[in-house]
């Protein structure tokens, strides 16, 4: 029932409506696009849907000593320009990425990259880093051929090893056109062409999908999901991804330095209602930092189900009661007035903040919301004069059980929220050096349990991704490790 499909004359092609604007196709800084969406580049290490690592361009890896790693490379791989994928290419590519994007050094701690022979790369790190393989899954470490850049080192076009080759990039519109890579080392795609169009406006994406200008997109306006689902020829899937809406608090200051207050607040948030009404079901009420289904998620956490009575009781225990009858609880004559900061780029956040505001009002907490640029928000927080901030935090940027814990809860790393628990620090340390994956997972779960007891951060909901596509789009399986959505070489069009 939809409009005429564009650019189709027998050969299969898929048009994707991308959710961000596209002004950068350098894999070192925008690897998510080239790796996960355009399928042009690949990294050394891959992940399974449950976030366990698996071989990709590297067939296996070994830690030789605390600072040295040996990666064996896959033999049968060729770049799109026909050159062979080898250790030299990996070395050049990684060093280039490090030089361009400072984040890669801080993730990987790479010091040197050496090609032992064609098929083996030796990587040394500046400090011991048990997460090196996991960090080499990070899309910005995609391996590209040297011919991707000109003689000044300027990116011409990414030439990778993926299932599709970049045919055309229009920097003025941000449109990417890919054709299939018939020499792909894995399964060759059934699609002949893949096209990505930047459509940052959610309404526009929904309209474009309905009109038939695109075949696939994600995150249309949440409220239109139900409607789109009913449109003939379209299907909608709700999925979760490794990102959690959380509220951080300034633990250095009252009232947040009191665990009873934190718990009270956690009980006072009706997560189910938020997910249902604010996110239109796109997401899931959070129990802990990690969504279910990840290898290191502690599935035993009970979370804080909505319980305003208990919340009030906890507040009262902590000395917060409405003594002057103005509807706002107070302690030593000081009413509880707090400010919640958040930013607008994730459309769910501002209305969520308002919902929290309304729910806190029932507890007698006067919450004010402020919406600002996210960098302004972290700047204010860094100065120490803040109460609460809400964000959507990626939990598996690097698929490692310790990475996210280390950033957010390790006392030395996150001075902003001021969480300081020696047990947690010790467990995270152990988790980071531990070689055995299963033991790592267990340590992580232990930390998660402590976090549930102390509630230094309020998890609200797991981030949901709504994928909307033509019914004809076949074999799309959502991969939760994706940043937004991830296509695979399996996707094709039903005839």
């Amino acid at each position, binding site marked *: 029932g939809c*409009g005429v499909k564009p650019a189709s004359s027998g050969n299969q092609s898929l048009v994707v409506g991308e959710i961000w*604007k596209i*002004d*950068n196709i*350098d894999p070192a*800084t925008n690897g998510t696009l080239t790796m996960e969406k355009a399928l042009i580049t690949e990294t050394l290490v891959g992940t399974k849907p449950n976030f366990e690592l698996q071989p990709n361009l590297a067939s296996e890896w070994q830690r030789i000593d605390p600072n040295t790693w040996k990666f064996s490379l896959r033999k049968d791989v060729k770049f799109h320009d026909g050159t062979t994928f080898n250790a030299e290419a990996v070395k050049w590519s990684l060093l280039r990425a490090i030089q*361009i*994007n*400072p*984040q890669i*050094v*801080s993730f990987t701690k790479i010091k040197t990259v050496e090609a032992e022979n064609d098929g083996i790369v030796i990587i040394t790190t500046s400090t011991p880093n048990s997460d090196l393989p996991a960090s080499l899954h990070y899309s910005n470490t995609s391996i590209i051929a040297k011919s991707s850049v000109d003689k000044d080192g300027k990116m011409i076009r990414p030439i990778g090893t993926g299932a599709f080759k970049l045919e055309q990039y229009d*920097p*003025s*519109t*941000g*449109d990417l056109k890919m054709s299939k890579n018939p020499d792909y080392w894995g399964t060759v795609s059934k699609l002949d062409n893949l096209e990505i*169009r*930047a*459509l*940052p*406006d959610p*309404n*526009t994406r929904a*309209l*474009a999908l*309905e*009109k038939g*200008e695109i075949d696939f997109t994600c995150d249309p306006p949440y409220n239109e999901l139900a409607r789109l689902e009913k449109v003939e020829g379209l299907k909608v899937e709700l999925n979760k991804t490794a990102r959690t809406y959380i509220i951080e608090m300034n633990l250095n200051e009252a009232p947040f330095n009191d665990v009873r207050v934190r718990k009270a607040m956690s009980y006072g948030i009706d997560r189910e209602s938020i997910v249902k009404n604010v996110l239109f079901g796109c997401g899931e009420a959070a129990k802990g930092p990690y969504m279910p289904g990840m290898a290191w998620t502690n599935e035993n956490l009970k979370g804080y189900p909505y319980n305003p009575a208990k919340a009030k009781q906890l507040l009262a225990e902590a000395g917060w009661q409405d003594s002057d009858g103005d509807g706002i609880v107070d302690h030593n004559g000081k009413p509880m007035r707090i400010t919640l900061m958040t*930013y607008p*780029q994730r459309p769910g956040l501002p209305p969520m903040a308002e919902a929290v505001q309304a729910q806190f009002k029932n507890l007698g907490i006067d919450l004010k919301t402020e919406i600002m*640029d*996210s*960098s*302004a928000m*972290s*700047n*204010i927080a860094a100065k120490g004069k803040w109460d609460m901030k809400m*964000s*959507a*935090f*990626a939990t598996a*940027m690097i698929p490692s059980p310790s990475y996210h814990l280390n*950033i957010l809860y390790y006392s030395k790393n*996150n001075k*902003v929220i001021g969480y300081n628990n020696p047990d947690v620090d010790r467990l995270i340390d152990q988790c980071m050096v531990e070689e055995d994956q299963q033991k790592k997972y267990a340590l992580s779960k232990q930390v998660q349990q402590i976090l549930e007891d102390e509630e230094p951060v309020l998890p609200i909901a797991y981030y949901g991704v709504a994928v909307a596509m033509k019914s004809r789009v076949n074999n799309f399986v959502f991969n939760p490790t994706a940043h937004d959505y991830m296509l695979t070489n399996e996707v094709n069009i039903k005839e």
Partner: protein
Amino acid sequence: MGRFICKRLAATILVIVAASMLTFGILHLTPGSTPATILKYAFIGLEEIPTDAEITEITTRFKLSDPLYQQYYRWIKQALRGDLGDSYVYRLPVAELIGLRFPATALLAVLSVTLSLLISIPLGILCAVKRNTFFDHFNRLLALFAVAMPSFWLAYLLIIVFSLGFNLFPVAGFRSLSSLVLPCVTLAAGMGAVTLRIMRSSMLEVMGQDYILTARSKGLYERSVIAKHALKNAFLPVVTVVGLQFGHMLGGSVIVETVFSWPGIGKLLIDSIFAKDIPVVQGCILLIAGTYALVNLLVDLSYALMDPRIRYGRES
């Protein structure tokens, strides 16, 4: 005349330099440390927390620890040599980046100015000629509504009706000629309404002048009175307004570009302001202020071209 242009150009350049200083200052007042902001927008993602090492790297890479005046001096020195520097975020030469985005905005602006003039000028004239008829009232009412219509709202209404309802034009983006239609109409509506009103009142004013009476007393046909005597005079104020409108259009395009995902300079500027991508912001401001000044210069010149009183000075 030549000296007039020279002096105007010099003044324009001074104004642009001052404007660039102003933006430079404003950007540095923005909360959030510059390196962290750049990191978030260009490298690590909005929600990630920059580490100290990353911040140091960015600070030294872009020489952000230098005092403000040094940074500005460096920028202006480069700019005078024709080099606008490299974008922090896109890591492309600013000139190239702007070169990519400007044509889309220019195309949009020029087309919508043309469209709005093509419609509003004849309508304005007709309204003046048939003043106080139904035609006049209807068009003035329409113009009033168009002025009062927020462009983003109009844009959505147009999309719903013409893209979804009648499936006539693409929803967004800049991929074919037909995708020009809706953004152009959106931008042209507001401007056209203003021009129509100015044209009408200017025309009415001119029609009351003595020389129109003279023309009529010669026995001219009414249409030659309008075409040969009234029009040219009535155009003078319209030209100024069109020049000013052009500036508004550059501003208004930010909104239209957002709604229609139009890859133009307005969107680039706003994004760069957020990202503290100073070279790009400066480049865009330079371009916008320059274009604006150029348009105004052209307006002045065409004014002089149209009006002999200015061309030959007032004294006889």
